[in-house]
């Protein structure tokens, strides 16, 4: 169903080794605009390492293509401006800043002004920042971080909201492709539904999403295709239905229980 679309993000033969240990070996996948690719697999399968490889945050083999352009050699901090954004498995915030300031910080391109400019034209800089603040508030709301939390410290808001904040921070002001690492971890009830809605709306806005999840209900509900990793290798891929039935997957991952 997604074959028609041109992939926004495509990885080929990705590999990651930590010393002797090969955490990831020859993994390839691609994700198109408006599509959500799920990545599942046992603990230690190499999912997070895979993200580190894609975002050039760990020494790796293989190549990465963004909108058809080879970005394998592009340093980690240059990828976001090209629209490739990611979140981490553990929540990551700027701890001494309020939730709102966290958002403003990651929107620095839009919110900030160059040193020279802000020195010579302080008023314009101020206007720019006010506008950005409005954006930030809107974005936070959109990602389900209510106004009541905007002036709190990130660690002082409910865990579920912290997860949403992480996603918001990762997405920033805009993104082409977004990599999320277990966004549903520790979410339940209302928060889980909010996350599902959020992921769907992001898809509808034409974002290319990759989501690592252990939360089967979630991933089965939102993923268009799923890649299954085990011990660093890709053992299966296909639609949720397909992988769910795949005996290898049942054996290595879901277990009889699921």
């Amino acid at each position, binding site marked *: 169903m997604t074959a028609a679309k041109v992939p926004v993000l495509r990885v080929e033969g990705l590999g990651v080794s*930590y010393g002797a240990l090969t955490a990831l070996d020859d993994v390839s996948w691609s994700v198109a605009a408006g599509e959500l690719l799920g990545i*599942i*697999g*046992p*603990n*230690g*399968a190499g999912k*997070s390492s895979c993200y580190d490889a894609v975002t050039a945050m760990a020494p790796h083999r293989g190549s990465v293509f963004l909108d058809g352009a080879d970005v394998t050699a592009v340093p980690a901090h240059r990828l976001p401006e090209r629209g490739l954004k990611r979140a981490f*498995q*553990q929540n990551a915030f700027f701890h001494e800043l309020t939730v709102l300031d966290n958002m403003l910080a990651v929107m620095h391109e839009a919110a900030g002004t160059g040193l020279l400019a802000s020195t010579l034209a302080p008023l314009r800089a101020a206007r720019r920042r006010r506008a950005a603040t409005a954006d930030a508030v809107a974005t936070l709301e959109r990602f389900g971080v209510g106004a009541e939390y905007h002036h709190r410290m990130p*660690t*002082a*808001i*409910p*865990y*579920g*909201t912290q997860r949403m904040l992480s996603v918001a921070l990762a997405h920033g002001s805009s993104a082409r492709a977004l990599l999320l690492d*277990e966004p*549903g*971890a*520790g*979410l*339940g*009830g*209302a*928060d*889980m*539904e909010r*996350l*599902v809605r959020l992921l769907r709306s992001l898809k509808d806005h034409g974002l290319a999403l990759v989501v690592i999840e*252990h*939360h*089967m*209900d*979630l991933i089965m*509900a939102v993923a268009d295709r799923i890649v299954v990793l085990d011990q660093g290798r890709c053992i299966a891929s296909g639609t949720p239905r397909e992988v769910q039935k795949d005996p290898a997957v049942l054996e290595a*991952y*879901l*277990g009889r*229980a*699921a």
Partner: protein
Amino acid sequence: MSPAAPVLEATGLRVAYGGNTALDLEALSLRPGEVLGVVGANGAGKSTLVNAIAGWSRGAPRVSGAVRLDGRDVSTLPPHQRARAGLLLVPEGKLVFGQMSVDENLTMPARIEASPGRHIYDREEVFGLFPRLRERRGHLGSQLSGGERQMLGIGRALMLGPRVLMLDEPSIGLAPRLVSAVLSTMRTLASSGLAILLVEQNVRAAIEVVDRLVLLERGRVVVEGPAAEMRDDPRIAEAYLGGGAD
């Protein structure tokens, strides 16, 4: 369910962060061999509850109320002494010493002597529960995957010979297979007389193993009862089962 006297009793627990109250519950008790599930939406106060019982927190909350372990009031004890007394918490979030090997993480410095109703696990038993850890025993904690960290956290708690084991969302980041493995482990542990307080979002999985279930909302208990009866309680359903599945 054993008729034995409760091993853990918490009464009038009240916790506030700065101005806002995060927890306020009249009474909560736990018998040996019993598995109590605590569920609730995010921010309901689940972590606050177990942290308060363990006398521990990364923030700076104001805590009041009484906590009794085997009838002895421990509410004045600092966290490390509660831990030694067998009141053990596996917190949410960072669970391992990153600069120590898996082995070192497991061998606890605090020396605890076994006593009736108190079994102190050794490393082999832990590796029995989590074979993955044996493979990684030489690695540093910081090199472990998210799930591997969870296992290590639980393993370490077991090696301190818990009387009451409190797990704050142990299934976070665990592969489904492991989730069921870990949860069924809870049953095994309980059957050896251990009292377990299980904080879970994953009610569907949790409800299979818990004897009783407590639903928290805004720091207050709204429902409490035997798991069997709770299965089809609408409030429980609404609290989770809807989540994601449609």
